[in-house]
């Protein structure tokens, strides 16, 4: 009897434990996910500039595109069920999914889709027919659907306010400060687990860390130099592939051979590996190319190592030269220290560079998010984001992209410095958060465990 009782107790204990464990790992609805970021937005319109990782993530929460690109670079349906092309890729037709509504309950129509796309791309000829949207391009583009996955091509209904078809709807919006999103019950793929997402913008990394440690924030940004400490402290880190390019962008083209030499000397003087090792704590990559190696595969061809001897030689050949001013984002401490390091490296080569907070600097240290669709679009978007003359690439083969990138680098208008990863610290109660290569927030399956 005592043995039976004992067995009964053991079995019941095991059953209770299993039940409890199952309850802890089973997704559940409800809860507020609090996200902090140092970035800020003035608007939530996907078509506004500048493009940033924050804008992309918010766009995914509020709006949808016709197609999306997954981590493998494969184009997946979203608002469009299917698509086909004719005229060798110059004319495309996208068939919309049925039963999709905007956050106000109004149905998604091909006319609204066509209007949204026309506004974002005035050069396209977009026509709506029943549930089909036809797009005619100036020239044939084989991988055109990938372009529709870009943030600016999200489908937006612009009436009195912006309406999207995404899983969340805006319930509170304070530009540059705070955004509160509420889950839609009528989302096409079903309601998400979270009730609300509270986004706090413009919060310094240090404050984010404090808020995280005090349990006031669930998802925070982790600076590269903090990542090791954060990992040591047991934080759950979500690191993306290098998703941002930090580069030196000259305000104008080189006006002479001498200036070309000076710019080449500057490019060669920069000790990128040292920056990545010490300043980024290896949470990035020394960038000799504009596009990251993981995307193109040819990035190693462009050397990222410093060559002070050659830099000095080029500097000596150039003769007397005026001092350059180097501007950077003063709100970004990493940008400041990298700018100052570049200044030191440049001085070692005999170049005269001074950092400045003025907007009219000769050189700017810029941080540009990568499109992460395919190399062709990536490079085009990069060039566009830097305000450089557009490059025309009809095909996405690596050879064409490489050639275009090499030409761009040879112009010395832009000098790549580093590719940065995006690292997030995620609270232990946040379940189902997946670290995507592009650093996007995938909250579709995120739920809060209640711990």
């Amino acid at each position, binding site marked *: 009897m005592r043995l039976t009782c004992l067995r009964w107790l053991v079995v019941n204990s095991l059953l209770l434990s299993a039940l409890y464990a199952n309850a802890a790992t089973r997704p559940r609805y409800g809860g507020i996910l609090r996200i902090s970021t140092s970035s800020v937005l003035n608007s939530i319109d996907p078509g506004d500039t500048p493009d940033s990782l924050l804008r992309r993530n918010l766009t995914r929460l509020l709006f949808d595109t016709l197609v999306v690109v997954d981590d493998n670079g494969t184009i997946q349906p979203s608002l469009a069920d299917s698509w086909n092309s004719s005229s060798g890729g110059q004319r495309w037709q996208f068939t919309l999914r049925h039963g999709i509504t905007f956050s106000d309950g109004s149905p998604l129509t091909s006319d609204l889709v066509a209007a949204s796309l026309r506004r974002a791309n005035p050069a396209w000829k977009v026509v709506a027919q029943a549930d089909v949207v036809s797009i005619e391009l100036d020239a044939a583009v084989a991988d055109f659907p990938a372009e529709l996955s870009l943030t600016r091509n999200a489908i937006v209904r612009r009436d009195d306010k912006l309406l999207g078809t995404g899983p969340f709807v805006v319930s509170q919006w304070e530009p540059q400060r705070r955004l509160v999103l509420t889950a839609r019950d009528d989302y096409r793929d079903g309601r998400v687990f979270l009730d609300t997402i509270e986004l706090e913008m413009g919060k310094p990394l240090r404050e984010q860390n404090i808020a995280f440690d005090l349990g006031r924030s669930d998802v925070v940004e982790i600076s590269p*130099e903090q990542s*090791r400490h954060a990992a040591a402290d047991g934080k759950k880190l979500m690191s993306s592939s290098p998703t941002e390019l930090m580069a030196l962008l000259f305000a104008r083209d080189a006006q002479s051979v001498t200036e070309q030499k000076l710019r080449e000397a500057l490019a060669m003087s920069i000790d990128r590996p*040292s920056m990545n*090792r*010490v*300043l980024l*704590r290896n949470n990035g990559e020394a960038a000799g190319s504009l596009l990251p190696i993981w995307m193109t595969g040819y990035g190693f061809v462009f050397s990222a190592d410093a060559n002070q001897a050659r830099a000095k030689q080029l500097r000596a050949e150039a003769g007397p030269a005026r001092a350059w001013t180097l501007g950077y984002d003063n709100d970004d401490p990493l940008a400041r*220290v*990298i*700018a*100052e*390091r570049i*200044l*030191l490296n440049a001085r070692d080569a005999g170049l005269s560079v*001074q*950092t*400045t907070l003025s907007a009219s600097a000769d050189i700017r240290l810029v941080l540009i998010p990568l499109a992460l669709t395919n190399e062709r679009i990536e490079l085009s978007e990069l060039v566009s984001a830097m305000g450089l003359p557009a490059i025309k690439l009809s095909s996405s083969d690596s050879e064409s992209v490489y050639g275009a990138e090499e030409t761009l680098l040879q112009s010395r208008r832009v000098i790549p410095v580093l590719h940065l990863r995006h690292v997030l610290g995620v609270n232990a109660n946040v379940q189902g958060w997946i670290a995507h290569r592009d650093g996007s927030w995938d909250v579709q399956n995120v739920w809060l465990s209640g711990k």
Partner: protein
Amino acid sequence: MNFRRKLMGVFVLTVVLSVATVAGIVSWVVRRSFDKADDERTAALVAQFRREFDRRGKEVNHSVETIAGSDAATRIALAVNQNVADYGPYLNDAESIADSHRLDFLEFADDQGMIISSAQWPARFGYKESFFPAVAGANTNAFLKQEELPNSVALGIFALRANTVGDKPLYIIGGRQLDKDFLASIELPAGMRTMLYQNLSGTFSAQNLIDPSGSVQSSEQLAGLIKQVQQQAKESAAIIHWSSSADDDEVVRAIPLTGIDQKLLGILLVGNSRRAYVELGRHIRSAAFLALGAGIVLAVVFSSWAAARVTRPVEQLVVAAREVAGGNWSAQAPVASSDELGELAASFNQMTHELLDQKERLVQTERVAAWRELARRLAHELKNPLFPLQLTVENLLRARQQSPEQFEEIFQESSETLLAEIANLKTIIGRFSEFSKMPQPQWQKLDLNEMVRNVGRLFQAQLRAPERTAIECQLQLADDLSPIAADPDLLHRALSNLVLNAMDAMPEGGTLTLRTSRQGENARIEVSDTGKGLTPEECERLFTPYYTSKAHGTGLGLAIVQSVINDHGGRISVHSEPGQGTAFVIELPSNMEKVALLKAEAKNDRL
């Protein structure tokens, strides 16, 4: 310049000199005092700066020493001794430690001086500390050092310590910036300020000069002083004129600040406003001007009073003297005091009294003399006809006694003689009677030129009489001569008298000139001869009644002429030199108002 003005000038000059002297002395004393106070205040401020510098140095020393002994430094020192290749984990340590110790500068450097972590320039990791190994190993006190920053160079108080947990020391270099906050922390007396010049090169650069508020306005004014210190590396001072207003002037003392190698790294500038001194100087000047003004007013008033006190009796004396000169011999100067001026007035009064007495005595004497002269003349004049009368009467008596037959004949002859002499006596008596009864002028409009022509015409025959040498008569008459009011008969008689005198003066012939001219409002008649002339003594007595220079004559002719001219309101003068002839000049006023008055009276009478 009269005495009153001279006295006033002396008083004013005395006041001005006195006030200026006092103001100058006060200004000099004030300036000396201010300079002395300025020196003392500057010395006190420099001492305070050094104390503040030492205090900051001790704080920095203490902070760096604390950091050197901290776990964080020991952890880095262990890494250095373990030859860890990657100092990345310590990159931000310096910044956070510097923050916690309130240091502006903090760097960790390995045994080779390679920077492991830098608070002021985090990107400098891997670079070598600039002043290493100059002070490596030296456990020095705080020192001044220039620290290179990304876009500038800062001046700071530094301290160096080493952590020697292993064989290889870890150097900790910490410091605080000497900036505007440091300058602001120095308590300053009113009117003083400090500035700091960071000496980055041998030349002056305005950007390197700061004061507690930041950049210094018009800092170029200090360029000369700073260059002087740069060249001489010793304390110097100058007065800086910040603007055209002296209120903004400042005495700036420049004190060189040197580093551990005695290199000139900075210059402390202590400014002492001269506003108070300038304002005091202005007040002194204002007071001096006020005193000067008041002094001048008082001097004027006092000098006027004093001058009046002194000069009034003198002026009264002058008035009295003028009255005496004008003929009022009884004029008296009032004796208002018993001082020298009183004595002077009394003496003047006594003098006039005596002069009056003397005049009266003289008049009496002259009157007696005149009567004697008159008696002598009368006797002389009467004696001439009386003597023939006596002889004639005696001859008649003798003839009656001795030759009665001839008595009738002799009686007839003697009677003629007696009558002639009696007539002669009558004539003499008539002349005297005429002089005693000079008539008043009967005013009427008179053309002088016409009257002179008539006189010339009247004497023409006598001038050319065969019994005497001819005298030429020349008439020089002015065309612009206006008519005057005069008595034609009296003037004619006077002029005739002068012509007769001229004829008497030229027994050997000559030239008689009758000239008229206009002299302002007056008419002028000149009667001149080319005779033997007169002596000065004769000229003086010429118009004295009964005086004559001729052998015959009553001596009344010229006296009558003078009397006529005086009655016309004119005057007569004589100009003569012996052998050069004599000229009588008559000046007559217009007197036309008298004619108008006469006409008006006549009109009234008719009415």
